[in-house]
């Protein structure tokens, strides 16, 4: 799994290559330093212990040893620095691509299966797992492949017999790691799944506590929690007894390898076949041979965690292929046509069909729709009929997969999208409030003076709110600022539309999520906003029918002639309450 991440990251992220290269280079240096340290340490001990050499005569070796230790500290801190900086840069790059895709290529195209919050969490806090990967796991991986080679190489020259023993244990160790690893991997996965299920159960019970209390089941649930926990403990301990055997075998291999080498060297020394210095070096190197191999096994989860975080972002970046919304220059025979003006020219859907990429089925079929200049068209239909998709098509956020959308005879695909959108004001179902001042939220990127902003807020019926705020229109709203109710947010969105003073107005369920009183108030505001503009008003019922000049019914992705339909709900509580 971790290796798969390597390939994917190095293939797709230029930033990931630097820490990989640095880690590889540092790994080679570290292997050399490990051998040098063992040789120097053995020389000093052998010379001082039995060679009778004084401290002064060993000064050269001691200074060299100190230098090697200094270098090792530098290498270790180099791993840390390069790994952490690398993790930051890799995630920064992934974020840039994520944002590019979700803001530029397919704005508002939902990412399936992940909430935006989770996605943002992976894209920001994911750096922790990437740091563990680049600064922890990756160096160990490099060391595990370089150090054993260096150690075995050196030991072969000093003591071929010890080298043979060590060389024999390494494949054995790896074989056991793989064998036992394979056997326990599935088990470990099951255990983790069980643990997260148990955690999920606890969360489920805690979240449903209010319901449990209403039904007087909280006492019974406390007993269940304890029983489930105890069951899990018994079950887990049974599997752990087997799962930890793998570590036991590895540990035994490494420990007995060291012990056997020590005994062999001892006997060789007795026979005079080896110097003490060489023997000590081999003994110092034996644990260095096993260390990185075991570390890799223990840090395996770091690789798996990093994969999970990166995968989520990659999935969002890649997503299904989409057709570009604007026509490509090659498809344009002539020059760009002049920008049509929806205030004076009708917008028409000609037999429009649409389906999202992938297997998500046909959303729209045979849609005929005409928005006459200066009139309001109500597009009604049950939820899921495709009404919001029509809005997205009109905004140029998606492109029809069949048929044409025209304004004054010009195909929408041929116009400059930015210029086209500049003529539209859009009030979505659930408008986004950005963490900024109220004034900037109304401006939304547009240059407008405070007076204009105030006028727009007044027109949207927000004067009372503005007066009640401590800092007036400069009060921060959105995340970390003042929370607005759904009705207030809807009005801010209307204020945006007033400020934009656009020719074409698109209102998507402007009163659907509001209580009847607020909905009635907003309907009155809408009447002012609609005057003199070309408007597409979307609603799931006909409660706003009095605002419309024309009603079109959309069901199952098709427009219907309203005169033949009797089942359309004509009156709703909102209207009767009014």
């Amino acid at each position: 799994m971790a290796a798969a991440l390597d390939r994917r990251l190095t293939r797709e992220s230029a930033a990931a290559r630097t820490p990989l290269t640095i880690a590889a280079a540092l790994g080679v240096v570290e292997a050399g330093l490990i051998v040098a340290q063992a040789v120097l340490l053995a020389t000093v001990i052998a010379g001082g212990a039995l060679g009778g050499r004084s401290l002064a005569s060993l000064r050269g070796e001691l200074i060299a040893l100190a230098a090697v230790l200094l270098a090792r500290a530098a290498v270790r801190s180099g791993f840390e620095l390069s790994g952490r900086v690398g993790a930051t840069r890799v995630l920064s790059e992934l974020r840039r691509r994520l944002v590019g895709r979700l803001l530029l290529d397919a704005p508002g195209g939902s990412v399936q299966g992940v909430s935006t919050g989770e996605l943002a969490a992976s894209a920001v806090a994911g750096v922790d797992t990437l740091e563990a990967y680049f600064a922890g796991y990756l160096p160990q991986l490099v060391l595990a492949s370089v150090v054993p080679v260096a150690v075995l190489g050196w030991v072969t020259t000093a003591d071929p017999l010890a080298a043979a023993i060590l060389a024999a244990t390494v494949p054995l160790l790896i074989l056991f790691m793989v064998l036992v690893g394979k056997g326990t991997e599935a088990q470990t996965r099951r255990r983790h799944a069980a643990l997260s299920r148990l955690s999920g159960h606890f969360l489920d019970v805690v979240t449903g506590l209010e319901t449990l209390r209403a039904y007087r089941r909280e006492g019974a649930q406390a007993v269940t929690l304890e029983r489930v926990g105890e069951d899990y403990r018994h079950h887990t301990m049974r599997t752990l007894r087997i799962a930890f055997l793998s570590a036991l075998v590895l540990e035994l291999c490494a420990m007995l390898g060291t012990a056997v080498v020590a005994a062999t060297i001892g006997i060789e020394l007795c026979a005079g076949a080896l110097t003490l210095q060489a023997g000590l070096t081999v003994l110092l190197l034996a644990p260095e041979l096993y260390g990185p191999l075991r570390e890799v096994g223990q840090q395996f989860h770091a690789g798996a965690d990093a994969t999970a975080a990166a995968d989520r972002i990659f999935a969002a970046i890649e997503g299904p292929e989409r057709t570009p919304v604007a026509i490509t220059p090659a498809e344009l025979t002539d020059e760009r046509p002049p920008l049509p003006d929806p205030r004076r020219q009708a917008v028409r859907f000609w037999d429009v069909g649409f389906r999202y990429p992938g297997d998500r089925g046909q959303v729209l079929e045979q849609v005929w729709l005409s928005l006459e200049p200066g009139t309001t068209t109500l597009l009604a239909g049950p939820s899921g009929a495709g009404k919001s998709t029509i809005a997205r098509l009109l905004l140029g956020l998606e492109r029809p997969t069949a048929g044409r959308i025209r304004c004054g005879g010009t195909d929408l695909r041929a116009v400059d999208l930015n210029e086209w959108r500049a003529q539209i004001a859009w009030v979505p179902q659930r408008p986004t409030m950005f963490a900024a001042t109220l004034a900037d939220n109304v401006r939304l990127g547009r240059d407008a003076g405070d007076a204009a902003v105030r006028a727009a807020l007044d027109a949207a019926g927000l004067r009372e709110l503005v007066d009640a705020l401590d800092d007036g229109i400069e009060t921060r709203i959105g995340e970390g600022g003042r929370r607005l109710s759904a009705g207030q947010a809807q009005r801010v969105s209307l204020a945006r539309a007033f400020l934009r003073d656009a020719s074409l107005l698109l209102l998507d369920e402007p009163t659907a999520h509001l209580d009847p009183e607020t909905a009635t108030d907003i309907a009155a505001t809408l009447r002012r906003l609609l005057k003199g503009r070309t408007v597409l008003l979307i609603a799931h019922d006909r409660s706003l029918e009095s605002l419309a000049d024309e009603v079109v019914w959309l069901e199952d992705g098709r427009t219907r002639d309203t005169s033949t339909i009797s089942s359309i709900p004509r009156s709703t509580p909102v209207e009767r309450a009014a």
Partner: protein
Amino acid sequence: MSDLATVGRLPAGERRWLAGSIALAAGATGAAVALLATSGYLISRAAQRPQVIALMVTIVAVRSFGIARAALRYAERLASHELALRQLARLRRNFFARLVPLVPAQIERHGRGELLARFVGDVDVIADLYLRVIIPVLVALVVIVGTAIAGGLMLAALGVVIAAALALDAVVSAWLADRVGARAAARQAPLRAELSNELVQSIDGAAELAVAGATGQALARLSTVDAGLARASYRDAAAAAAAAAAHWLLSGAGLVAVLVVGLRGVHCGALPGVLLAAAVFMFVGARESIAPLGRAVQRARACSASARRLQAVCHQPAPVADPATPRPLPSRGALAATGVSMRYGPTHAPVLAELDLELAAGEHIALVGASGAGKSTLAELLVRFRDPQRGRITLGGIDIRDLAQDDLRAAVLLCGQDAHLFNTTLRANLLIADPSATDADLWRVLACVELDQWAAALPRRLDTPVGQYGDTVSGGQRQRIALARALLSPARFLILDEPTAHLDDAMAARVLHGVLAAAAGQGVLLITHDLTSAAACDRVLRLGGGRLHDVSTPPTRSDP
């Protein structure tokens, strides 16, 4: 830290497992150190070329230490995991019990989901306190002391230098890891939160930004915040690298110091030459136990933060308590509120002011009013999830504060706005209301909310999982299942808080009709926005200005 001490206290049974884990862990690490030390001695002795037979004891000792190391480590891992799992089960049970009286009154509805998720996560963090913090720290301590004593037995000065070197390395490394981690968290947390918010709102509002032509500005802002976070990360990376260097430098300096003292000792004859290698190897082995300390102190910080949050939640006073001697539940009579006033805090405006309500047995009342008018507050008062500041609520003439909460809720059931579907089967979710209900009862209530055909078509019918992992259920179906569950309850009064908010108008009307028909014998308080279904009730009350107003005459359509 005092919160951590309170939360982390172990009962006697678990203390035995802790002692065992520490003894085994120290034994395992000690065996590894002894393995290195004895093999160093073995080789030095062998270099003096004695009879091979003279080395046999040492050779056996080396092997035994190797086997002991592996075996002890295995036993230690089992013991420490046993301890952690016991703790987890106990902590979950205890914290659940402490949370029970606080929900919903002490935990604000806004952000409740995240708060509870963090609560669950914090309990998990605390459960690892001993496995990841206490045991590694105590083991390092035992190894440092043990190694220093062994060194001191060879040569007093050696013991001192080993103790000093190991202790200095341990303390400085742990302190630096803690400082670096804490500073990084303090510096990065606000930047991360800011970037995360910017990401969420830019992605959620991407279409609006595109239409407004403000995408470029959003991208520029994102890239500024991103760059700020990157700069902070680089500084923290440098600090972490410096901390790593410090640990390796101290450890290297310690090695050189041990060598120098040892060589001096050998030269002046105080230390036998054959022991020099043993002393140095022992020091090298002991260093290994210091490495996990950095992670342990960072974990300790996380545990401490979790403990603080848990205690902050659990230390809140319970909003209601059972009376010392509860009165028996009256078998009949109305549910009534008299002069009830309620405000959430001394500075808040009152939500309910001198409110009067009488819900007779079998009567159906619709309660309407704008969002935030206090309808849900009234519902919570009626089942005593809270108590009002003034006035009283009675059941059959008896103040509900004189009844046991369990008895009251057996008579008055609240089906809340966000009634929870548990992550289990449809059947188990319904049976919460009445464990003795038969399948026929279940199908009957499902039919009332028009879910019987849907349920019959499910692959495993009543045994189909619903809830979080059973993704087969839409928001509207979820609400109807919760309604069916409420209908199954034998309670005499049902308080239904916006039971059809996620249904379309036609479905809402049909479902409410079915519900009211099924609850013909029960008193029902139906909180709703929908005036059509309100009209089906005996009375319609509007909550406004903290009081109820009878608006039973159905409002007629007003002409503009």
